[in-house]
């Protein structure tokens, strides 16, 4: 069953649509699938990811998550939908500097007014190897540690989909591979769907399926399965 589905998804910029960042993408991602998206700089990968997560609105087309058309929702509704169903991991970690590691991780849950599943969160923290940094502030962590926390935050609210935008872009290769391993293991362990953007072919190969994008269009797909 497809958890994520796009239809004729387009995102154009400029008065006369001079820039076609995403140009008619039809995509289906199955539940629990790990999909990587590759492409050159400016090919439209990040725009696609933002559209998939409802961070941006498309010029045309639809995005369906769990059978719901996300762009038919109003802003507030979309935000709530996003915090319950989508987790994000960014290249530059984007941790909230005024919150500790633990507070950052549980942020989406608490924003939703839910009780924190402490056992689950503690498990996540253990798995990501940041137990001893629980009370630390983001500026006291290394890049790799910050990205682990960002992954934990993305997984903490048990979202249907995790969208990761070059999560290893700011990390060295060892840290990058570690983080990717954790993301993959986390996704598998908690049955989450992951869509990941990367430049790195090595990292892309860790996914179940790799989609190549050029000029805002899908130019090819390759799968391990």
């Amino acid at each position, binding site marked *: 069953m497809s958890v994520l589905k796009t239809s004729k998804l387009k995102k154009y910029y400029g008065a006369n649509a001079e820039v076609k960042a995403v140009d008619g993408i039809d995509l289906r991602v199955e539940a629990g699938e790990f999909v990587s998206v590759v492409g050159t700089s400016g090919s439209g990968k990040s725009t696609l990811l933002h559209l998939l997560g409802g961070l*941006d609105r498309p010029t045309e087309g639809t995005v369906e998550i769990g059978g719901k058309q996300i762009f038919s929702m109003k802003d*507030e509704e979309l935000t709530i939908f996003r915090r319950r169903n989508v987790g994000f991991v960014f290249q530059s970690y984007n941790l909230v500097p005024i919150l500790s590691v633990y507070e950052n991780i549980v942020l989406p849950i*608490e924003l939703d007014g839910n009780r924190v599943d402490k056992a689950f969160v503690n498990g996540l923290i253990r798995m990501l190897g940041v137990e001893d940094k629980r009370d630390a502030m983001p500026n006291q962590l290394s890049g790799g540690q910050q990205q682990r926390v960002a992954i934990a935050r993305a997984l903490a609210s048990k979202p249907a989909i995790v969208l990761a935008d070059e999560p290893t872009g700011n990390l060295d290769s060892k840290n990058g591979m570690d983080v990717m391993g954790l993301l993959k293991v986390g996704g598998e362990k908690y049955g989450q769907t992951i869509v990941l953007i990367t430049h790195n072919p090595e990292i892309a190969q860790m996914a179940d399926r790799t989609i190549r994008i050029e000029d805002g269009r899908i130019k090819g797909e390759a799968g391990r399965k």
Partner: protein
Amino acid sequence: MRIRNRAVIRKITRRNLRGNSARNFFLFAAIMLTTFMIASVLSVYMSFNGTMERDAVRRAGTRAHLFVHGVTPPTAEYMKKLTYVEDVGVASIAAAVNIDDTQYHLGYCDDAMWERLMTPAYSNVTGAYPVGEFDIMLPLGVLKGLGITDPAPGMPVMLEGMSFTLSGFYTDYQGTWMDYRILPVSKTFADSAGGGAECIAGIAFRDKRDIYDGWGRLNSDLRQYTGETFYMSVYGVSSVSNPFGTAAVYGVIIAFLMFTGFLLIYNVMTISVSNDVRFYGLLKTIGATARQLRSIVVGQALWLCAAAIPVGAGLAAALSLAVVPYILKSYTVDSVTSFSPYIYLGAALFALITALLGAALPAWKTSRTSPVEATKYTGETLRYTKKASPCRREADKRTRVLFPGRANPYRMALRNLFRNRRRTTVVFLSLFLGLTMFLTVATVSGSLDADKYASEMENDDFHLRYQPRNGAMFPGESGLAPVPQKFDEAYLQRLRDLPGFISMWTVTEAKGLMTYTDAFEKHLDGYVEYILGMGGASGFDPERLRESLKMSFQANIYAIDKGDIEELNKRLAAPLDAEAFERGEFVLIATDTPEIYADVGEVEVAFDGGSFKLPVMGFAPERFKGFLAGNVAPCVFTSKALLERFAEPAVYSIGIKVRTQSQREAYGILSEMTAGDGDVYMTSRVEAYDEVRGAQALFWVVGGSISGILGLIGVLNFVNVLTVGILSRRRELATLEACGMSKGQTRRMVLAEGIGYAAIALLSAATLGNAVAFGAYSLLKGTQGADDLFTFAYPVIPVAVVAAAILLICIATPGLAYRSTRRATLSERLRAAE
């Protein structure tokens, strides 16, 4: 080898300046406002000093500091050569004339005397100095006395049977300071009238601060030069009575303004530098030296100074045209508005120093930027320890009771409030200074009680005092004929006919010589001390002075009615026998220091028509019947019947009570009756009330302007920090939204931050600020003579309005800044931050 890189540094400075328009606005405003306020304060200071000095010259009737009598041309020439003498002018007295019971002297003044020493004391000088033999220049007051109200040059005038042609006229302000009141005539007239019988040289010293020093030097030099001793009369005054004290007050105000300006400039520069730290780090990476980085930051401040200082100075110049005369209105009707270039140079210099100080620290920080640190810099300064302290954990628990839920927007707002403590402190300090200044001005001004002052200063609604200009109220005084009784029955009847008239009392007076007894010793000691303390009396021998005062132990004897004693009895613990007073069985001494006269058992007063020796049975307050002129001996109150037995008393003063609603109308009529009558002096509750209201308005304008500008600087600082704080957190806010924080939650968070800032600022103003305001009020109320001026009144309405305005700004600013960040889509905001 010197590397030519100044051009590239300049280019970077200019480009950086262009790319920071919002910051430039705040810096421009801060520098401009600082210049404006300093220039305004300096302008008021210099205009006030200028007005004081001009009025001192006007009161003295001359710019000369002293006159040397009986000089010869060689002596005058000798004096001109003395290094400490600035100007020497010579007047040749030709004749004396009496106009309207006042003696004047016709005299020829040389150019220096007329142009440099006399004219500065006059205004409205019209026409030319007399040239023709019978030409004359006259003051407008003298012309009025001659019945000429519309004078014109060329007009004939008669003086004691002599016919003159009016060559010009002027307004003079002199009182009875000068021995000679010179009416300028031509040299020909003076020569033909045997002029030179008395030649007077007017001397102005270079050092205006201590003219007595100049007097001493001139005296000794002239004695050495001529072998003679000259009679000298000192009229001039030292330039400013207390220049140091006045300058210190203005200095404190300027320092205060500079400090507030500094806070804003420093804060804005620090924020700007922090935001650009990656840029500076990059410059350093590619080879910019610390010095070059500093010059980029300071250079931007200098560019902004070049634009803002002229605007601030220009505004101050324009405003001083309107404001300075208003501020000095309570002091004089035609103030001197100073446009001295020193005002604007001084203001520019102070503002420049403020801007450079404000930029210096951020520039230094920039120069120490580590390229590696700079690239990692995220703009979010946090100083949390790895492990929360017990204190913090406790605070955390408490906060959670208030705002349950870790991700509660209010709790996050609370943390954001203190994430950059130095910046927060500067903002609070800036806003606190403005608010405290406002509170002080509003409290002091609001506590000025015009009604209280009017009723404390004046027992009666109107008080008229008879004070002949020539001092001759009684026969035999000043060798002049006494002025006929002004307050005759017809005059009194006019007063009874005033609208709303309720009652009236009179005090009569007769001059008497009181016999000195040892019981007056304490009083005389104080009097001798007072005389010796006056400038110019330092050469007196105290013993001789005491003896001479004993010889002229004259008292002003005032007579009051039985009813007045009954009124006084209401205030006394042991009432006086009003009937016995009326019968002339005892007298009272009018004094506010009765302890000095405790030993005076009886007084003996001699009049031309006899004398009395009566016991002193009590004391009355000095202002019991309004202001009473004093003399060497203390004033004595007798009954009217008693005084009439020994002398021919004249009505000295009158107190009038009218109904409240008729006071303004009655004041108008009395003002008309007394206008132009130099012998009658009127005081009134209406004037006292208006005087305080004027002071109140003045205080509001001056204090309100200063506190308004300080408040504006505080608010600008506040707005800048809040706006920059939110704009620089664009990525953080976008992340929060990406994590699922709704627009409403984010808005609530930033609004709570604004309200938090407002709450702390208002709370500190409400506690510490109010304490400062009350302290200032108590200090002013405690100064001598100010007690009657104040009744504490908290300025509830102004404070409520300002508090509401602050709250509104604090709510509106983060809301607007947040809205501006939302113009871009979430995706764009996240991408821009990447």
